């Protein structure tokens, strides 16, 4: 016998509220989870208070194994043997995440605490530190005077030059590999792979010996940008290649079937579909180089002045500024180095945010 929709019931159903029954857990299970989570923590807290064992050791050698055990027992008690495997995976992955999170936050924390000392003193917020340069400043000058504005400009200039060179070439290389698919693909891939193994100081040495010692150019932002570009290129090329490879072949065939040329397939279909990924490739490329110090020591040297000409003069950059200051036996200089490190990090954050906004996929909101 068949059933027919009952109109009376529709009114009843329209009063229904959306619910998420899968998020609810039985009270007994909740209690067990609470005990399994709190007991090891409480035990470790006691040990920490009443023994001399250092905190990190307790965390790694006592807390994690204990938590694993507790979660395992709780899982076996509620779900049987299969639950145990589940809980081990969960505790391990949560533990690993927590571990890296702790390391990351302690690095960030010390960076922020020590860095703020340079930017924020008894005299309040020191905009001078952000906007002034290093002229007439020696290591013992109080922090109220001088700053790293010139190094920020230098870093931005060098990274911009590097990006202008490495991003187009890197993306073009990826397009050659995944779209053009010419005969040289294996060699190009091998070459790019080999290039990603170049130590950064070798990139600097290369520019120094080939272009600077030979007299072709000065030690300058441009020379630094070239050295950075050498390091950036393989990262951009390889990441972009991976991203383009993910674009389904159907899309290319579909575009060709509409009478498209190869160039239009790449420009109008493949690259737009891979836009967010390509932006990621660029971000990873910038991230690869922006903190590199060694190549700059050889190619752009340093300067105390604000240099705006990228071709003629040595120029300061944030990594070299940090490198110079951190080694000095003056607490003020070391604080400046921490401040510069903080500024470098914030700069990276700003650049990445801009890139993400530019690369936002208007259409596919759910991705």
């Amino acid at each position, binding site marked *: 016998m068949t059933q027919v929709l009952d109109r009376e019931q529709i009114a009843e159903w329209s009063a229904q509220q959306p619910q998420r029954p899968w998020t609810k857990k039985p009270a007994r299970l909740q209690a067990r989870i609470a005990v399994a989570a709190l007991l090891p923590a409480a035990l470790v807290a006691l040990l920490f208070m009443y023994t001399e064992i250092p905190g990190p050791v307790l965390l790694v050698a006592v807390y994690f194994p204990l938590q694993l055990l507790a979660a395992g027992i709780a899982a076996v008690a509620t779900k049987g043997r299969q639950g145990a495997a589940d809980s081990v995976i969960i505790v391990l992955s949560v533990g690993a995440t927590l571990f890296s999170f702790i390391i990351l936050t302690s690095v960030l924390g010390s960076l922020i605490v020590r860095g703020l000392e340079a930017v924020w003193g008894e005299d309040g917020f020191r905009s001078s530190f952000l906007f002034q340069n290093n002229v007439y400043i020696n290591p013992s000058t109080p922090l109220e005077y001088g700053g790293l504005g010139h190094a920020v400009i230098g870093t931005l200039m060098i990274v911009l030059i590097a990006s202008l060179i490495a991003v187009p070439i890197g993306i073009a290389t990826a397009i050659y590999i995944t779209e053009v698919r010419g005969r040289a693909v294996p060699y190009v891939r091998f070459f790019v792979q080999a290039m990603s193994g170049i130590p950064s100081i070798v990139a600097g040495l290369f520019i120094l010996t080939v272009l600077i010692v030979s007299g072709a150019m000065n030690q300058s932002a441009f020379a630094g940008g070239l050295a950075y570009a050498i390091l950036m290129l393989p990262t951009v090329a390889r990441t972009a290649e991976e991203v383009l490879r993910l674009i*389904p072949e159907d*899309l290319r065939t579909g575009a060709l*079937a*509409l*009478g*498209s*040329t190869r160039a239009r397939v790449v420009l109008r279909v493949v690259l737009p579909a891979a836009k967010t990924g390509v932006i990621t490739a660029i971000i990873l490329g910038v991230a690869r180089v922006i903190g590199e110090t060694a190549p700059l020591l050889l190619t752009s040297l340093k300067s105390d002045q604000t240099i705006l000409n990228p071709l003629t003069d040595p120029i300061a950059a944030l990594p070299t500024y940090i490198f110079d200051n951190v080694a000095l036996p003056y607490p003020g200089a070391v604080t400046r180095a921490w401040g510069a490190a903080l500024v470098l990090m914030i700069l990276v954050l700003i650049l990445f945010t801009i890139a993400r906004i530019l690369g936002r*996929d208007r259409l*596919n909101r759910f991705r």
Partner: protein
Amino acid sequence: MSTAEYESTAEYEGDVTVLEEQFMEQKSVGPIELESQDVSVWFGQRKVLEGVNIAFPKNTVTALIGPSGCGKSTYIRTLNRLHELIPGAALAGSVLYEGKDIYDTDIDPVHIRLQIGMVFQKPNPFPSMTIRGNVLSGLKLSGLKRDQHDDIVEETLTSAGLWNEVKDRLDSAAGELSGGQQQRLVIARALAVQPHVLLMDEPCSALDPTSTLKIEETIRELSKDITIVIVTHNMQQAVRVSDYTAFFLAAENEPGYVIEQGPTTDIFGSPRDQRTLDYVNGRFG
């Protein structure tokens, strides 16, 4: 019937004469727009099709039928030079479009594909474009100039039976459409460039009966002006939309052949080959 039986040389020779007769019959029908001559196809060392001779008269609908894996999609892709995109692909024989071999060295495949459009077995809308953008993408990609874009969008989406469902959200992402809606979208996309020949690879396999009927209506309508080749697994559909039918068959690990071809009424009403009779009556394998 067993594989060995229809592989025997005697039967194969019989097929060839049947083919030739029907081929001649077709020629008398009208000008031939597209024609494949002795086309054999390889993927690497594996030969998947052999000696396919089919002529497509202008402004007619030809259905290609046959069991899964017998090479229908492969064949249809040789007709607008998409086959060559697959690494290791090879081909023998020739495909004549308006009397000229499309595989001649001085022929630009882009030009061929512009005139011989295609709808694929799997819907492939461009994810970076809106619904409207997808319909018009052919014009952008091929550099064709056509005015009144809004009219084109409405017209082609209506032909594809999708207009009413999407007219209020032409600017949202094509990826948000359901599978069947995407399929109708790519049909509209193929129509917007106004091809002379349209190759359709199972265009209705993901569609509901209403949309299917709408597409079939569109195919009949279009066939007044263009030549259509449609692959289908739906026998009723082949009967409903096509003027001619070609039946493909491949034995296991053997290349596929056209077993029988001719006017659809003959193929379904009085097939000469036992295998065709079995297949069109759903008694195969």
